[in-house]
């Protein structure tokens, strides 16, 4: 992979460290993380709990601040990127406002940005259609299933057309069938829009299936053990998960996790 200059990278982290001061000593959530993500990449972060993958995502989103090292998002500091609304964030839970309809939930960032009613309506309709929720705009969150609520959350993250999508284990609380379906839809979305996606997961098949780059992390201290470039074709049916190439990559991921003492 030819190395590029910092400005071309969507995310460029160098020797990133984050240490929390807890009562019983410092917690090294991230140690010496070097990472480069290019435009249009679908990057998965995989590791056991406590390996720092959510923390890393939150640093990119300016929800946490690193103690050492540097990180740029779109060539700016994470704070500047946040103020420019450069990314959409999807949490582990749908995080929808219970008193708003799905339409008004998806339109929340647009309201805060101060867009006109016409533009809001158009964008909301477009993104709901994109995630397959057209017709559900007038419903309240409690009337939707978990999978549909999570799709609404993704629609909200897409509503203001940010080029970067940060997703923190969005399908973690869903059952496998819904998960497969949503994985397919997410891949389709990525192909259609060409966005850069950072996806945190603790499922190896999901990481290998969705991404073209897999960052394997391990805990204590949180660090990157391996970065795997996946050369699976962009057009992937679910069956590809039984192919030899897929299983080889999954094995590499598993080895990376074992090397990082994740299984101990």
């Amino acid at each position, binding site marked *: 992979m030819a190395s590029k200059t910092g400005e071309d990278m969507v995310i460029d982290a160098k020797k990133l460290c984050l240490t929390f001061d807890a009562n019983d000593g410092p917690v090294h959530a991230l140690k010496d993380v070097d990472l480069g993500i290019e435009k249009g990449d679908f990057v998965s972060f995989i590791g056991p709990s406590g390996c720092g993958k959510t923390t890393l995502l939150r640093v990119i989103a300016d929800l946490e601040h690193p103690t050492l090292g540097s990180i740029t998002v779109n060539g700016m500091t994470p704070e500047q990127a946040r*103020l420019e609304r450069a990314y959409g*964030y999807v949490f582990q839970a749908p995080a929808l406002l*219970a008193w708003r309809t799905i339409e008004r939930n998806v339109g929340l*960032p647009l309201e*805060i*940005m101060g867009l006109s009613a016409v533009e809001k309506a158009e964008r909301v309709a477009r993104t709901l259609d994109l995630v397959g929720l057209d017709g559900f705009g007038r419903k309240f969150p409690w009337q939707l299933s978990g999978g549909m609520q999570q799709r609404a959350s993704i629609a909200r993250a897409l509503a203001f057309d940010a080029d970067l999508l940060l997703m923190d284990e969005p399908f973690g609380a869903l059952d496998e069938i819904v998960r497969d379906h949503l994985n397919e839809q997410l891949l389709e979305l990525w192909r259609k829009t060409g966005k850069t996606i950072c996806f945190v997961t603790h499922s190896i098949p999901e990481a290998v299936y969705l991404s073209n780059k897999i960052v394997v992390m391990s805990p204590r201290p949180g660090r990157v053990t391996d970065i795997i470039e996946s050369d699976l074709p962009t057009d992937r049916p679910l069956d590809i998960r039984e192919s030899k190439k897929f299983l080889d990559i999954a094995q590499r991921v598993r080895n990376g996790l074992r090397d990082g003492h994740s299984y101990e």
Partner: protein
Amino acid sequence: MTGALSRVFPIATVVAAIMVVWYGFTVYLNSPWQIEQYEKAGIEWQMGDLVRDTMAHDRPILPAPHQIVTEIWKTTVEKKITSKRSLIFHGGVTLSSTLLGFAMGTILGIGLAVSIVENRAMDKSLMPWIITSQTIPILAIAPMIIVVLNAVGLSGLLPKAMISTYLSFFPVVVGMVKGLRSPDLMLMDLMHTYKASRWQVLWKLRLPASVPFLFASMKVAIAISLVGAIVGELPTGAVAGLGARLLAGSYYGQTIQIWSALISAACMAAILVAIVGVVSHFTLKRMGLRA
């Protein structure tokens, strides 16, 4: 048992039980005086006579329920509303003070809660004083408030309403502070990623999230506002209102009058709380919160 019946039947059963016990106590508590009357007049008496006569005293120790109902009927339906003896007139006076005090208390409570949540200095300095204010017995403070406000030129409805305000703002503040702080961290992070201003977070996230808490507090606030209104009527020499009726009754030994005012106040409180409950139900339903 179907819907409406299943709601009414348990309450009706409890009310019936209370009635039985009440009548029992009426006979029991009024009989010493009645037996004395019999002995003075030298009349032979039976249990049946005793039961009948104890329920017909002019100034019983404990009036029978039907005596109270008759008295309420006499002073509401059979009197002109403008008459100074009409229970509706007095109820209206108390109600106006209650509602005004409740409205002011709710607005004050919401305002204080917002400033406590948004401003750290207010949070640290106000909360202790708010709690302290409620530890002073209202019966001690009420006359002071009335006298002070009369001296400044405010008399009539406003001082009484201010006592109601004083009592009712507290549950609203406590409930709203909890409600405004109720959205979980994930939602706060979400607003942070949208670069939402403090005002936007307050208006779009905190205030809507606090509505269920507000209604719960308002139920307490309106009941206690009524108590404040009645207490406020006592120091002014008992001119008008249910509290005044209570006081006048106790001055002249008219126990039936006291009890009729008491029952009316209790019914008024129950109706007011029920109204808040109905408003709460429909509002929360419209807001999509399953309540």
